[in-house]
């Protein structure tokens, strides 16, 4: 089955959230995860602080701090899931509570050709 990467973009705005609200968010994710069941291959939050962007300038590698969460939506976490098609992956993402905090980018993993 094809694998799809759900990239969760947000601007890291969880400051000042109360315990009750934290629980509500977690419960909503729990309900969504339950719908997906075994289709979740792996998942993780990415740290909202620090981060480095590298690029090559001539012969040397330039390291810059960033991307900065304050400026725009950055990838805050990901879910790697199994789905039949893009349509199916979209269907599975529709109820994700993340839409209250940002957007989701869906990318299919390049399938390995049968050799």
């Amino acid at each position, binding site marked *: 089955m094809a694998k799809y990467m759900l990239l969760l973009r947000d601007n890291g705005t969880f400051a000042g959230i109360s315990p009750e609200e934290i*629980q509500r968010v*977690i419960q909503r994710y*729990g309900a969504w995860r339950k719908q997906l069941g075994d289709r979740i291959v792996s998942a*993780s939050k990415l740290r909202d602080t620090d981060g480095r962007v590298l690029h090559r300038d001539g012969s040397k590698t330039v390291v810059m701090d960033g991307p900065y969460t304050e400026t725009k939506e950055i990838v805050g976490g990901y*879910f790697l899931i199994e789905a039949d098609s893009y349509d199916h992956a979209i269907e599975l993402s529709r109820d994700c509570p993340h839409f209250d905090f940002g957007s989701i980018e869906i990318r299919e993993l390049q399938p390995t050709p049968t050799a």
Partner: protein
Amino acid sequence: MTDVPSIVDHLFRRSAGRMTATLARVLGADHLDLAEDVVQEALAAALTQWPYNGVPDNPEGWLYRVARNRAIDVIRKKTREISDAFAAREEATPRFAHELEDDDLQMMLMCCDGRLAPETRLALTLKIVCGFGVDEIARALLAKPEAIAQRIVRAKRFIRDNEIELTLPSRDELPKRLDSLLDVVYLMFNEGYAASAGDDLVRRDLVDEAIRLCEELCSLRVPKIHALAALMHLQRARLAARVDAAGEMLLLDEQDRSLWDRDAIACGLRHLEASAAGDELTRFHVEAEIAAQHLCEETNWPRIVELYDDLMAIAPSAVVALNRAIAVAMVDGPSVGLEAAAALEPELRDYVHFHAAIGELSRRAGDRVSAEEHFKRASELSSTLPLKRWFEKRARYGA
């Protein structure tokens, strides 16, 4: 949304309070901020892990361990003993849930120190013991978040400056120390109860929290705690029947008795029985019996007048006197009641229910002008919309 069975309702809020109490017990009251910070960090850590990896088998234990480890990290440099103190505690009491009762009580007693103003005690208890956020407290108490935050900061400074300790009073001293704590529990209940249905769910949470705290305190086996529990259960029983389908307030004799919560009544009556154990008669005892009287099929008004006489002897106030006047009106007629109520005007001039009572008694006595005038004044003084509408309606049609 479907319920996820792995997290019980309000777990985060409640464990926030419990964990803060446990941590502060070890860290000392002067580290209250640190305890709160690490608890908040643990909850935030859960927010970064659980949505992605699911909820662990023992969520509360996970949160507690993360908060505890964080606290140790923060102060490790400064002192070695604190982590030893944790180790000592955990060896002695392996089950997390059971070690909390004394800690909770100490924390409540500290938050309810008699030298703090009652509204400050309430805000601090909601924040630290019940795990409410500042915004939630502000909504529940109809105050500005900045004002609540200020109040809490000042209270913490007071605790620090006066070196108020987290200690358990002796068995003899306990009942006395409890008074200020029970006042806060009842204040919490009333803040929630006074709001009309649907106003804001957080306010209904206050009613539940007050009852939960009181039920926990009942394990101390002090009769007056049972009296307060009885009073709150008996009042809560009528909560659903207080408004009609359109959200309009209903008087006691207009209420649909089938909507009364039978379980709450049974629970209240059980507590009322347990409250009779000692020889101390408190206002909670008397008020609970008044609430019980109001739940009877036929209201025994002469008995209620007697109970208000008792209450005036224990805890005299103009509001109690007003309630007594209303009961007197039911026994001796509206004009006798009016006379008693009118005498209270200097003290109750700005009290909504004073004008509501005078309005109603005037209406019954046939004085339409006075009725309309006082219902209008009651409407002006009301802070919630349903109450305002109700008095406006009375002013128009009731008079």
